[in-house]
Structure formats: C-alpha cells, structure tokens
C-alpha cells in the first residue's frame, strides 16, 4: 500500500469533504470542511471531483510519503514544510517517496487543507468521507496511522492567483439574514445586536462558535425543537450568540435570530479566539446572488 505514514497526528487532523447530506432525519449532522473556500481550492488545483482532504487544525502534523503524488495545501498558514524547508501554500507541490511533510506553527488562520491528487483512499460512511468524531464516524489522525493514496506522476505546478488568496483579517463583518424567531427580538435588542463588536470566546469548535458581547434577550426563551440550518445564530439563556457550524446538532429549541451567509461562515472558521466580528443584515436576494456566485466560481 502507498500513502502517508503518520509520524505525528498534530492537534486535530481528520479527513473532510463537502459533508454528509440527507441523513439529518436520523440525527446525523452534515459535518464537512469548516472552510469550504480553502477546501474547494485544494480540490480545484488538483482537478479532484468528489475528493477529500485533511483538515489540519493549528500545528504538529508530520507525515512521511511512501510514494510520489501531487498535493495541494490551502487555507491557514501553519508553516508548511517539505523536508524541513518552508514551502508556499495555495499551490500544488510534487513529492516523492521518503519526503517529510510537516506543519509547525500557526501564523495566519486556523485550518489548512491538504489534498492529494485523486484523494485519499478511505471508505465513505453514509455517502461521505467527512469525519464526525462525536458520532464515531472517522477518527483524528495519530502516530502510526497510515493514509493511503494512489501514486501519481503529474509534474505541472498550479497556483491560486494572488487576488483570490484571503488575508484572514482579525475583524470582519458577518452578513446575516434575519429569519427563524427574529420576531422574538425587539427593535431595541436588534439594534444592540447590530452595533456590538462580538468577541470569539475559547468555546469555538466544529460544532459552533460562541461569542461574547452585548447580551441579547428574546421575548421567549425556548421554542419547540426544530431543524437547525448551517450558520444559524442561536441565543441561549445567557444572551450570548452561538453561530452553529458544520457539526451542529440537527435540531434544537433555543430561539434563533437568523442565519449567517455560508461564505462568511467559511471565513469565520479561520478566525482565532479573541478576534471580533460585527453583524450586518443582508436580504435574501443579495444572499442568493452571493452564494450562487460562490458555487459557480468553483464549478468552472
């Protein structure tokens, strides 16, 4: 078998793709790459269709190749090295048997995606490669694991054009569609919500990001449990918003003020603890235009 020997698993590294659809009626969450923008670029650079990638959180991952392949690294700058030499990201690299791939230190963003040509040879579970640790689907990489891929000999190097490489600022605006129980929030509460710089707390995970800032109070504290969409902003009893992301619970009973545009959630996935965000309302027509543009861009 050819592939990567895992010399060190890093803080949290696992296989992801675009997630698992069609199983929420069983309580199975979508999961998938937290930052679809970087993930989709890793696939586009390699012409992978229905592929997968390693989602690498912060530092510590170390792999040894037992065969040649072309790989792509996109997303956070985690001091990516081949044989201990720093290499540029947002591009492809050709590697050979014996090469050591490593990620040492986070400098910008949180999550990097490492994809290989034609994807890693792993089994799909419920039609997806995406790991969901809390559901016992897939696992985090650890020392001694082996990640199989089929060797390739492609020599061409491809780059993401400079203008498409995100800067990962530590403050930005999240566009939110007011929906769900937004009528539970008075004009005064909404004004507070839209005029606050919310800080990212240490409670940020693949499930959701908990924010800290002005307390928002709905007129009713609970609802009959209902389906939760990607990016939904839930206001629990303490009045501090939680943005629900790829591994959110499928149903829940806290009031929600609306949902953040998916492309902004992808940016949020790269934002470290202590960064700040501000919410701005977006209407449905603009949201549709924005997301159709996003998906069309990666289709071509």
């Amino acid at each position, binding site marked *: 078998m050819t592939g990567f020997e895992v010399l060190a698993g890093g803080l949290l590294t696992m296989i992801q793709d675009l997630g698992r659809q069609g*199983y*929420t009626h*069983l309580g*199975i969450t979508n999961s998938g790459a937290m930052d679809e923008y970087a993930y989709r670029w890793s696939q586009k650079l390699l012409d992978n269709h229905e592929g997968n990638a390693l989602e690498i959180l912060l530092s510590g991952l170390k792999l040894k190749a037992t065969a040649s392949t072309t790989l792509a690294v996109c997303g956070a700058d985690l001091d990516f090295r081949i044989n201990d030499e720093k290499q540029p990201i947002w591009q492809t690299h050709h590697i050979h048997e014996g090469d050591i791939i490593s990620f040492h230190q986070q400098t910008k963003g949180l999550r990097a995606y490492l994809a290989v040509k034609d994807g890693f040879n792993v089994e799909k579970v419920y039609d997806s490669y995406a790991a969901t640790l809390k559901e016992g689907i897939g696992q985090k990489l650890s020392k001694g694991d082996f990640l199989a891929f089929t060797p390739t000999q492609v020599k061409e190097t491809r780059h993401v054009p400079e203008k498409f490489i995100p800067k990962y600022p530590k403050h930005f605006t999240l566009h939110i569609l007011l929906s769900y129980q937004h009528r539970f929030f008075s004009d005064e509460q909404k004004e507070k919500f839209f005029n606050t710089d919310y800080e990212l707390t240490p409670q940020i995970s693949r499930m959701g990001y908990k924010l800290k800032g002005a307390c928002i109070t709905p007129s009713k504290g609970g609802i009959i449990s209902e389906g939760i969409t990607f990016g939904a902003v839930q206001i629990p009893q303490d009045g501090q918003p939680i943005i629900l992301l790829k591994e959110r619970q499928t*149903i*829940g009973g806290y009031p929600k003020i609306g*949902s953040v545009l*998916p492309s902004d959630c992808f940016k949020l996935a790269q934002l470290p603890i202590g960064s700040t965000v501000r919410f701005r309302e977006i209407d449905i027509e603009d*949201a549709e235009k924005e997301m159709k543009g996003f998906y069309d861009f990666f289709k071509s």
Partner: protein
Amino acid sequence: MQNEAYVVETVSVDSAMLYFKEIICEEVLDQVQHAYLALKTLEYIIDLTPSYNSILIQYDINYYNHLSIKEAVLKQVSEYREITAEKSHKLIEIPVDYSKGIDLERVAETNNISTEEVIDTHTQTTYRVYAIGFMVGFAYLAKVDDTIATPRLSTPRDKIPKGSVAIADTQTAIYPQDSAGGWNILGHTDFDDFSSFEIGDRVRFERI
C-alpha cells in the same frame, strides 16, 4: 389537509422551514409525517429535517430560489396522496429491564406513587416518535402520562450508559450510545436498532 394548517418561511439562503401549528400533539405529528413523505419525492431537495411541528428543507439553490421553493413545497404537500402502506406507522417493541432503573425511586417519590405504578404506567402507553436528534438515533417519544412526568436532573450525569430508558417531563427515550445526560433512568434495554426509528412510528415498552 387545510392550507391554513401550515406556512413556509425562509430561514437561510438555501433552506426553508415548513411550520405547522405550534403545539405538540398527534394530529400535528401526522401532518408532519404526511408532508415529510410528500417532500421526500420532490426533486432538488438536499436534506429534510422533520421535528415536532416543522420540517427544515434544504434545497439546491441552482434550481430553486426563496420564492419558487415555497410554491413547490405548498403544491407538493397539498397534492400528495400517500400510499396506504406508508401511512401504517410501524410498531416497535422495546424489552426493558426495569431493575436497572437507578432513578425509579426518585420518579416514584416525585409523583407520590410506588415504583410498580411507575413501571405499569410507563409500559401502558403507546408512544409516538416526534423527533430524532440530539445524537444519532435518539428518538424523542411522547407522550408520557402526567402521573409519572418528572423534570430533568438539575445536574446532568457525565455518563449515561447506552440502552438506558429514561424520561424527562412528558418525554421518554432510549440512549443510543453512552452519553452525558440529565434524563431520569427507568431501566435498560438491549434493543440496538436505533436507525429503524422514523418520525411517526409507534413504540411500546415491555417489562422483562
């Protein structure tokens, strides 16, 4: 089904919510199940998440927009005529060992009845699956008789073993895997087919 019984609302750029009357009852559950079966046959739908009185509908935005999805959903639900076989909600029987019920005494004391009465009451009701969530295969079953209804523990336990049969207020459920949780444990079952639960199914507990 009457048109006034439900409404479709936009919840995100690619999702709409079909809401029924804001009440937990079998009539609404049957409406949810009917609509769920109807929407399963609608094209370009990515995911459906049914719950007590709603269905979250995620759709392909290359095919629908926020207006056309509403039209399509309303049309589909109002025109759909279910096949008889689909309507017969299957009955799932769960064998329960109530001697493993570490909270039986507490539930009995809370309601001023004997533990025997708690077990009798719990096994006499045919429950319905109202929602599935919280974790994979966790089916929310209702409605537990008021005479044994008991609130959640004030401090949840770190570990409730897989197969625990428990109640919280007027809901009952089986833990499909080891998990933290605050429900009152009445017993234990070896039942393991959690993926067979579907919204609307009937469930009975049998004492062993």
